[in-house]
């Protein structure tokens, strides 16, 4: 089935296109928009974006594979990124990541079997003065402790180990 954006998104696409002198510039914004609807950049999403922007499919594939935030396979309902770059690591970021892995019973990059959470490590998220930190979907959680982390995971509905 070809990808179809929702009516609101179709309108937003028009608005996005009006910002640039060149359609191609809408490539990243459109991929984000479609990924938000679909959860990942499926073949259908890539095909849709390529047609809409009159780009070769290979160009869009090249873009999707270059950027870490475009999912090349389906992900969980919620996505968690734990920052483990030096400033966070100096304040326990690595331990936090391991704590997450342990609690969820999955490794960095994996999704819980119930499809609820995809866990990933992240590089510096510009939040080093409130380290350690993680991003859950669109929200930052800063100055984290293991207890605070458990609370966040529980709120997401995770089965903690």
């Amino acid at each position, binding site marked *: 089935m070809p990808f179809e954006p929702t009516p609101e998104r179709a309108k937003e696409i028009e608005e996005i296109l009006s910002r*640039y002198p060149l359609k*191609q510039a809408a*490539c990243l914004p459109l991929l984000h928009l479609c990924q938000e609807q679909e959860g990942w950049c499926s073949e259908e999403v890539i095909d849709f974006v390529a047609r809409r922007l009159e780009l070769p499919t290979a160009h869009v594939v090249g873009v999707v594979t270059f950027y870490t935030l475009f999912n090349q396979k389906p992900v969980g309902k919620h996505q968690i990124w734990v920052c483990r*770059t030096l400033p966070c690591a100096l304040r326990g970021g690595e331990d936090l990541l391991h704590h997450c892995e342990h609690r969820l019973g999955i490794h960095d990059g994996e999704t819980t079997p119930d499809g609820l959470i995809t866990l990933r490590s992240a*590089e*510096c998220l510009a939040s*080093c003065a409130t380290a350690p930190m993680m991003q859950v979907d669109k929200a930052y959680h800063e100055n984290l402790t293991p207890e605070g982390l458990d609370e966040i995971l529980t709120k997401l509905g995770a089965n903690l180990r």
Partner: protein
Amino acid sequence: MLQPQKIISRNYDLPESWTLATFEKAGGYQAIRKALQMEPAKIIDEMKAANVRGRGGAGFPMGVKWSFMRPHPTKPAYLVVNADEGEPGTHKDRTIMEKDPHSLIEGCMIASYAIGAHVAYIYVRDELHLAKQRLWDAIHEARAKGYLGQRPFGAKDYPLEVYVQTGGGAYICGEETALLNSLEGKRGEPRFKPPFPAQVGAFGCPTTVNNVESIASAGPVLLLGGAEFSKLSRLHALNDGGSRLYGVNGHVDTPGTWEFNCGPTINELLEQAGGVSKGRKVKAVIPGGSSTPVLLPHEIFHMPDEKSPMHEWHGKSVYDVPMGVDTMRVAGSMLGTCCLTVIAEGTCMVRVALNLARFYRHESCGQCTPCREGTGWILRIFEKMERGEGTLRELDEVAEIASGIVGNTICAFGEGAAGPALTFVKKFRKEFEAHIEAKGCPYKGSIL
């Protein structure tokens, strides 16, 4: 004690500081009104006099950069704001976008008018969702009031638009030509320079790329006057002017982001951040993001030339020298983004080096063989060191790999990866050797 400054951060503590109402009550959108009455060349003169050294890391004077823009017979000009803030240890631009987005919009308007652009794109890394939302809200508010649009303030026939563009999660897109490719909807691979963006930038048109904080300084510069702004700095004599944001993170008691007149010392910033945590001693400081080589407290600032304006700090600890573009270069590092990462005694420096080597290996865009392969080799060597499987020969190879990268790549990422790696090995060689000898980490209880 450092005296906090409130110019860039003037509105941070006001209620709902991100709204147009608060911004205007505090005198916002007056600088652009003034700008629209000025000749663009005069605005650029004020920026030059202000000595705003690029706040994105390289320290290029903003006014000089603007003066490179020449009207093109057929092509439009663009302003592109670098809001990719991804340099490890950097957390300052985010505060402007989240707490005072209108000051950035006003700066975009001033800069666009001065360089002859009608459209500005603010390229924000995707993860900063709150910053993007606040910027869009600010743009919509400003447009609804008629500040942005066909006739800004109903006064001048100079259409101005500002848009937010979203990145895709790649550190390299902070490099200005990679950013331009990404803005154009391509893979974020850096371009060869020349041509520079002022000649061939966004969509093949003349473009100025500046950092968020640089652009947010434009309003205050016009209101204060360029020369007055510059004189605030301790390093005014070195053409390093004004005030700017400083951050401290890592092993300190109260990490944070503050504004000071340019030129605080590392020791003053350490004090500002409550000192090293748990009463420990400082072991090392990364002065301005992970691409700037690490400095140790016992290192001495060397400027024997009595005629140099930097001579007054000759013989002092590098931690007691005002931080500026030139002083940090003389100290053997770089000013970078003015956000410090503090590392306390008791930290294994092999692990520190390994953490950053992993980052650079992961973020290399892969276009240049020396960078793509070299960052991988350095990572492998550091991994082996950490596991206790390293050899002295491999330790010496780091220098060879680093010199193979520096000067042989398309963009400055290569140097930013190689320089610090080499510096860790040079300045902490004993720790690397101890790992080789002990066949593993000899520092039990390292706090990393």
